């Protein structure tokens, strides 16, 4: 488990955002996202304001813009959907360089593009500044049901172990001269998925027995409940409060 404590999107730098308690960050990102989603799509400049807020957070968190941009490509399928909307949408149409576009579709495309991108960027900033363990701890302190935090803890702890299992099986297969790579060779791939399940399940049984022999009775010891100081809540609330301010100004303006 040497490398099991970070995750691919974590950016290990020291910044004020990294030092915030995880629960305040999760709450801030959730509120931010909700406000963004309920903002009417016609309030164009509000979304510019939101983007500016995220840019400020990114600067404070020392997350490079290029890093963010690269990882935001996860959103691409939805951008493709957004591009299709003006052509497929119904209702009133306008002509633009000889293309007949639906006004509603254009608005919809903008809606998906703006809200989707802002959501992905906010999630990326959260992931970049929070380790896996902290994230679970944050969910736990936000009163997420312990069943889920426990399952998630086990999942994340053993994910790397299983991924390594899979890698070893693949190397074993390669070193025996077989490299399935096309659909008609799918059997070898699926058989190793089956083997992976068996290994995972049997490992789960062993882990459970090991826990029972150490006194586990259905509950994990609660992590020391060092609550986030009020100052951190205050600092993190700057994001949703500013967001709400922009949203209200846009609604009344």
């Amino acid at each position, binding site marked *: 488990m040497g490398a099991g404590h970070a995750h691919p999107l974590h950016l290990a730098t020291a910044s004020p955002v990294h030092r915030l308690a995880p629960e305040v960050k999760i709450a801030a990102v959730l509120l931010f996202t909700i406000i*963004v*989603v309920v903002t009417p799509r016609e309030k164009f400049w509000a979304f510019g304001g939101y983007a500016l807020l995220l840019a400020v957070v990114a600067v404070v968190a020392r997350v490079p813009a290029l890093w963010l941009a690269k990882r935001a490509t996860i959103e691409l399928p939805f951008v493709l959907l957004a591009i299709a909307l003006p052509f497929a949408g119904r209702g009133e149409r306008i002509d633009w360089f000889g293309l007949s576009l639906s006004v509603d579709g254009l608005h919809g495309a903008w809606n998906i593009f703006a809200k989707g991108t802002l959501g992905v960027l906010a999630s990326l900033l959260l992931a970049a500044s929070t380790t896996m363990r902290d994230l679970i701890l944050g969910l736990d302190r936000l009163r997420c049901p312990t*069943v889920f935090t426990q*399952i998630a803890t086990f999942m994340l702890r053993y994910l790397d172990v299983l991924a390594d299992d899979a890698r070893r099986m693949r190397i074993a297969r390669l070193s025996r001269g077989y490299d399935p790579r*096309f*659909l008609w060779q799918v059997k070898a791939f699926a058989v190793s998925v*089956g083997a992976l399940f068996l290994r*995972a399940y049997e490992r789960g049984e062993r882990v459970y027995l090991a826990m029972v022999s150490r006194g*586990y009775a259905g509950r994990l010891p609660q992590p020391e409940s060092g609550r986030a100081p009020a100052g951190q809540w205050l600092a993190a609330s700057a994001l949703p409060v500013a967001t709400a301010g922009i949203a209200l100004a846009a609604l009344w303006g």
Partner: protein
Amino acid sequence: METTAMHIANGIVDGPVSAVFAVLAVAALAVCVRKARNDLDERLAPMAGLVAAFIFAVQMLNFQVLPGVSGHLLGGTLAVILVGPWVGAICVSTVLIVQCLLFADGGLTAIGLNITNMALLGTAAGYLLVAGLLRVLPRNAKGLAVTAFIASVVSVVVASQGFVLEYALGGTTDLSLPWVSGTMAGVHVLIGIGEGLIAATTVATVARVRPDLVYALRHFRKPAVVEQEVTA
């Protein structure tokens, strides 16, 4: 392109409908947790955690379908057959929540929609089909493989139609619904066939080696005839 989002992002479906589905997802998951405890009692956390890690790891294994086109398993039906609907739904939901928080895959406000489609609708459809098919098909590795294939295809398509329903209720753009429905179904039949082939072979492998681990075989078996040793 390594990873592309398969999950609904923010802003596709409007706020109120997203909120309704979030409430629905929470309620349904509470039921799943209660039922899953019947299957696993205090083993629930470690076992479901490992199965969720398995689903996550399997999703990271890409398989080349055609040169340049690679696919990976979604794992919902696989989980249903191997560990049952309740644990399966919890595992898939956990994977979705972590993907949303750690990998920015799927919008935070759309989490209820994603859980409803993939973890609830998908597994429910898969489970009903598995339960139904195993009444007629032989309960051995081959029968299970056929079941897994059919259930995978249908459950993936049903999950995609869940999106169509949500879009009909709270879509942010007025699109012709038959078009959305047809496109989603078409794409997902293809995904489902790939999913089904891999799931079928996988469960057949497990059923041959450790049939006692396969939930579907354990729970839909006719009452086993206990062979009594005649000790005279």
